[in-house]
C-alpha cells in the first residue's frame, strides 16, 4: 500500500513563475491548492481567487460594538449610577462622551482586526504538513512554492507530478501528512 500524502509541492525561483504556475493549475481545474511566498503578491491573490473574506465585516462589527459599549458605559455611569448635578447641567452630556466613545471604537475594531485575521488564517497552527518538506524553510527567504493538495478531486499522484513538471519548477516534492 502507498503511504497517503498531503499533496505535491513545486518550488519556483521568482514570483512571476509562481503566479503563472498558479494560473495554469487553476485552468487545469485544480481547486484545492495554495501558494507560499516570502512576501505578499497581489497577482497571486487574483490568480487563486482569494479576494473574498469577511475581515472588513468583522472589523466593522468590532468597531460598532466598541463604540456602543463606550457610549453606554459613560451614559450609565454619569446618568444612572453616579449622577452629579453641577448647577443643573444636563446629566446626559454627550459632547464629553465623544472622545472615549472614539477610543473604544478604535480599540475594539483593532482587536477584532487582529483576532479576526488570526481566526480566518487558522492561526496559531504550530504544525502544518508543508513544514515536512525540508526546502520549505526557504519559503520565508527567497523561494516560491505551489502546493496541490491530495483532497483535490482531480488529484492523482502520477498525473499531478507530470503536470507540475510541465511548469518548469526547480523541484517537485511530496508533502508528508
Amino acid at each position: 500500500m502507498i503511504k497517503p500524502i498531503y499533496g505535491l509541492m513545486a518550488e519556483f525561483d521568482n514570483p512571476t513563475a509562481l503566479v503563472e504556475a498558479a494560473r495554469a493549475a487553476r485552468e487545469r481545474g485544480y481547486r484545492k491548492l495554495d501558494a507560499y511566498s516570502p512576501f505578499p503578491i497581489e497577482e497571486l491573490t487574483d490568480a487563486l481567487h482569494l479576494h473574498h473574506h469577511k475581515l472588513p465585516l468583522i472589523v466593522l462589527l468590532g468597531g460598532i460594538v466598541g463604540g456602543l459599549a463606550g457610549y453606554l458605559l459613560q451614559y450609565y455611569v454619569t446618568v444612572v449610577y453616579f449622577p452629579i448635578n453641577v448647577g443643573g447641567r444636563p446629566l446626559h452630556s454627550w459632547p464629553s462622551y465623544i472622545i472615549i466613545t472614539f477610543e473604544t471604537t478604535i480599540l475594539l475594531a483593532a482587536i477584532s482586526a487582529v483576532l479576526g485575521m488570526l481566526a480566518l488564517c487558522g492561526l496559531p497552527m504550530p504544525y502544518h504538513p508543508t513544514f515536512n518538506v525540508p526546502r520549505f524553510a526557504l519559503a520565508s527567504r527567497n523561494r516560491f512554492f505551489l502546493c496541490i493538495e491530495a483532497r483535490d478531486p482531480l488529484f492523482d499522484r502520477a498525473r499531478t507530478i507530470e503536470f507540475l513538471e510541465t511548469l518548469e519548477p526547480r523541484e517537485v516534492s511530496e508533502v508528508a501528512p
Partner: protein
Amino acid sequence: MADEQNVHRPKTDIAPGYTFGTVTDQIASVVLTKRTPIFWFISFGAGLVLLLLFLLAVGVLFAKGTGIWGLRTPVMWGFAITNFVWWIGIGHAGTLISAILLLLNQRWRNSINRFAEAMTLFAVACAGMFPILHLGRPWLAYWLFPYPNTMGVQPNFRSPLVWDVFAVSTYATVSALFWYVGLMPDLATLRDRTHNRVARFAYGILAMGWRGSARHWSVYETASLLLAGLATPLVLSVHTVVSFDFTIAIVPGWHTTFLPPYFVAGAIYSGFAMVLALAIPLRSVYGLQGLITDRHLDNSAKVMLATGLIVAYAYILETFSAWYGGNTYEQAMVWHRMTGPYAVSYWSLMLCNILAPQALWFKKVRSNPVLLFISAIVVLVGMWLERYVIIVSSLAQDFLPSSWSIFHATRWDWATYIGTIGLFLFLFFLFIRLLPMISIFEVRTLLPAAKVEEEAES
C-alpha cells in the same frame, strides 16, 4: 505600458544589488549572529545603568511620596507631566511612519517602519510611567478605570484626564498589536533561519505557525490596511487629547483652541528627530546604509523641517493672539515667558525649535548624517523645553501674584527623567538584539525582482 510603469516608479527605495536572499540574510544576521558589536554592549549597558537609577528614584518615590520632586503649589505638574507629553510625542512618529505613510503608499517607509514602531511602543511605555508615578498613590492606578467597586464611585467621564487614560491605553494597545502583526512573517523567517533549538522554539511559538500561504497573505494585507486606517485617526487623536488636559483648563497659556494641532505637529517633529537620532548610529554600526539610505534620512529631515515650521507658526500665533485678544492675563503670561524667571528656557526653546532647524533647508546639511544627528538632538531638547515652558511657566505665574511660586527641579526629578531614558534604551537595544529591526518581508517587496511580469498585457 511597461515603459510607462518605469517612469512612474520611484527611483530607488533601497540601494541596488540586493536579492531576496541577501536582504533576508543581512537583516536576520543582526539577530542571529553570535558576535554582538561593542556598540550594542555600551548602549545596552548605559540603558541598564540608567534603568537602575530609575528604579532607585521610583523606590524613593514610593517610600516618601511626590514631595521628593520639586512639586510645590501652584506648580503641581512640573517634570512629570512635561516628560509624559515629551515621551508620548516622540512615539507619534512611529505610528505616522507605519500607518499614515502606508496609506499614502510611501514605499520608502518599508525599511524604517519596524524600529520606528518599536520606538513608539517603548516611548509610550516611558510616557505611561509619569502620570502613574505622579498619582501620589501609584499602586491605586487601577482606580482610573471604571470597574464595579465597593466604594460606589466611578471616574468622571467629563474630565480630560480620564479621556487621556483611555486615549493613551488605547494607543499603547493598538501600537503593540500593529507591531506584533507586522512582526509575524519575520518571526517565521527567524524560525526557519536559526540553528539554535531554543531560539527556534521561541520564534516558532511567536510566529504562530506562519507559513506565507497566499490565503494568509490576502487576509494579512487587509488586516494591515485596516489597522493602518484605524491607527491614523488614533495617532492624531492621542496628542489632541493630551492637549485637552491643558486647553480645557482656564490657566493662561493653556486655554487656547490652537493647542491640539500645535501639539500634534510638535509630536511628529520630536518623533522624527528621535527616528533620526536612532537610525543614524544604527545604520552605521550594523552596515545598513543600503537599506536605510541617505534618501530616508533626507525625507525624515524634510518632515522635521515641515513640522518645525508649523510649530514655529504656533509660537508666533500664541504671541499674536495674546496681544490681539486683549486679555490681561494672556498678555502677562507671554511677557512672563519672555522676560520672567523662565526666560532662559523660553529663548533656548526658540533657538532649538525655530532657529536651528532652518539649517535643514540646505541639502548639504540633510545629506550629512553627523549634522543631521546633531540637529535631531537639538530638536529633542527643544521640544522638551517647549513642554516645560508651557506647563511650568503657566502654572508658576497664574492669576494671583500672591500665590506665585517658582519651580525648582530636584535631583529626583532629574533621576526619574533620565531614568526613563534608560528604560527606553534598555528596551530598544533588547529589541535590536532579539528581533529584526527592519521589516524583512516589506523590504523584499521593494526589490525589482518582486514585481510580477505580466506577459499578456504588455
